[in-house]
């Protein structure tokens, strides 16, 4: 009897939660449509348990190594949400991205249009313009600073068009509050080659979901393995970093 009541209570809370989300602008999730293959654990941290499209995600990077890792992670996400032939736009004023590498993350590099501008405010202007166009799937922008007002403008643009925005803040000197739906940080981690073979192994990152609106922030270790994400359990991960043996080959 007690458990029945508790069940009913949980059900009610769940229902209320969904109503609140609807009021906040989250569309009810389509059942069974996950956007990130292999990242169910992370996707569960988002409201309704679905990675939100049509929103702006913010990624903090401080070093070029972090940018490289973040670029890889975003490409992996994009390969999951991009339909065949879908178009992405990459806006930057200091781009070092090497397009052929994206193929390894399941993206077709010729489906990306790169926009290179000289000034940082032009990056924002181009990003906003691109986010308003509903014919493209996603916009990735490399921006140094992002104020609340600027992020709000981007958020308003995506709310109408349902384009997904990824902001890579490659020089985040001050972490200000923004209107972005989530804030991530992707840091490279020592990889582990399969079965102790020598060599570098698969790309592995520590993915920190530092802030997520109406969700649960978290920290995971993620690997890109054979064309999809894989979340690594903590114990196995600890085992590999303690192994300080130089392997070369």
């Amino acid at each position, binding site marked *: 009897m007690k458990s029945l009541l508790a069940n009913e209570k949980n059900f009610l809370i769940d229902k209320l939660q969904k109503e609140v989300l609807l009021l906040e602008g989250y569309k009810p999730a389509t059942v069974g449509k996950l956007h990130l293959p292999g990242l169910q654990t992370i996707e569960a941290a988002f409201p309704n348990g679905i990675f939100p499209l049509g929103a702006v995600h913010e990624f903090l990077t401080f070093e070029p190594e972090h940018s490289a890792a973040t670029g890889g992670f975003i490409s992996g996400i994009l390969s999951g949400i991009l339909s065949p032939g879908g178009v992405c736009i990459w806006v930057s004023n200091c781009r070092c991205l090497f397009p052929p*590498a994206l193929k390894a993350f399941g993206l077709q590099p010729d489906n990306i249009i790169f926009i290179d501008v000289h000034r940082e405010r032009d990056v924002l202007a181009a990003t906003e313009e691109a986010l308003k166009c509903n014919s493209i*799937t996603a916009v990735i922008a490399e921006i140094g600073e992002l104020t609340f007002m600027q992020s709000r403008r981007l958020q308003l643009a995506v709310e109408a068009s349902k384009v997904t925005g990824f902001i890579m803040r490659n020089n985040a000197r001050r972490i200000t509050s923004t209107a972005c739906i989530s804030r991530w940080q992707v840091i490279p981690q020592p990889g582990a080659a399969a079965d102790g073979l020598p060599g570098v192994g698969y790309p592995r990152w520590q993915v920190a979901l530092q802030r997520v609106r109406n969700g649960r922030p978290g920290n995971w270790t993620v690997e890109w393995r054979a064309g999809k994400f894989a979340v690594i359990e903590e114990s196995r991960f600890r085992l590999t970093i303690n192994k*300080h043996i130089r392997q070369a080959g």
Partner: protein
Amino acid sequence: MYIWIPHLLTDWLEVRKPELRGRPVIIRCRQHGRVIISAANTAAKKQGIFCGMTEADAKAIVPGLQAFDEIPGKEAQLLNAIGEWCIRFTPTVAVDMPDGLILDMSGCAHLWGGEEAYLKDLHTRLHNRGYDTCIAIADTIGVAWAMARFGGNGSIIAPQQHTAALLQLPPQALRLEEAVLERLRKVGFRRIAQFAGIKRAALRRRFGDILLQRMDEATGVILETINPLQPIAAYEERLACLEPIRTATGISIAIQKLLYQLCTRLHNEGKGLRYAVLRCYRVDHQIISTEIGTHRSSVNTDHLFKLFELKIPLLAPGLGIELFILEATIVEDMPPAQEALWRITTGNMESAEVAELIDRITGKISGAGISRYLPQEHYWPERAIKATRSLQEKPGTEWRCDRPRPTQLLANPEPIQVTVPVPDYPPMLFIYKSQLHNIKKADGPERIEREWWLEDGELRDYYTVEDEHGQRYWLFRSGAYSGNRTSEWFIHGFFA
């Protein structure tokens, strides 16, 4: 229509130096060691000076003669300038060296309310700018030329009446050489009517082919063509305004009208616009222009107007714009758009929305570089991709992913200091930007040879290395090991 400017050079001098007005002025040039007069103004001619006279003789007749040296090529320059100015009267203007302009005014005169008003407006405007002109309108270039010079100023020959008008003129009106004219004079022909009825064979025998050719050109038997100053653009729309336009709203209405006309025409012919130039002719004779480009041929008036709208603040209308010309300089075939039953939400590279978005961004942000990358069959990393501006171009070859490639590639490899235990082994540590990285794991080497048929230089041995923090780098050693020199190491990229 022919405009003869008899005193082109001296008129120009008088415009430049108003104090010369009304005084005898000549332009002199050296010919075979003599200084002779090449042009004289009306005041000088009245006192008996003619072209070809030596300067010394002229100075003897008129003591206060103002003489100026000839500037080579000045006539052509002046005629070109006047001709370009005349484009407001008709799009087809040609220069007739050394002192005339030919205007094809078919279909233009009604805008001025008839040929007389047209001629008068042109004459007055040129007169106000200081140029004395003799203008004639006729069916053929030859007769217009003749009437301007010999038929009195402002003569308008009615359609089909040009032969009759020509017959009354002296043989000089046929644009003949001096030798032929001399022969005609010897025979006693004073007017064209006197020999126009003679058999052609007889005329040819006596005076050569040129006389018959000139007569045929004048009567319209042979069609004479002109070289317009500005070749007529295939896709051009003009909008002349009754009142000069000065406001942004006015300009945008003009652009919308022109775009509508142009796009309708392009659409009917199955073409699309890729590049367009808008030229605005201002009241103060300045021409201001702006241009737009699209990434995909388009006849979407709204979209093209949006691109122009961004440029309107850059147009300075001054005292007002009296004529707008919109020209599609680059036009491409456009496949007919398929009517879609339902709206596809996600576009691809071919969709018009994406192309329009790119156009908007390039219009809004000056200097924005738009590029896509296609694979190329080269192992050399810098050459592995090819940038293209086209949105439609398909990759000619597959993207390779069998070799590890970094997500971030430095534009130029940066030198690093390394410690290497054994030759051809990956380094133990490296210093980049004065930071020490201990290498824990490494892959490689992947040897990439320089493409000797394209450039000279050292080969590269690439290593994928991971430091103690798990950060992955792409390093290479330039050149193979050799005993007598230390090899150089570089960092070229960052792996994800």
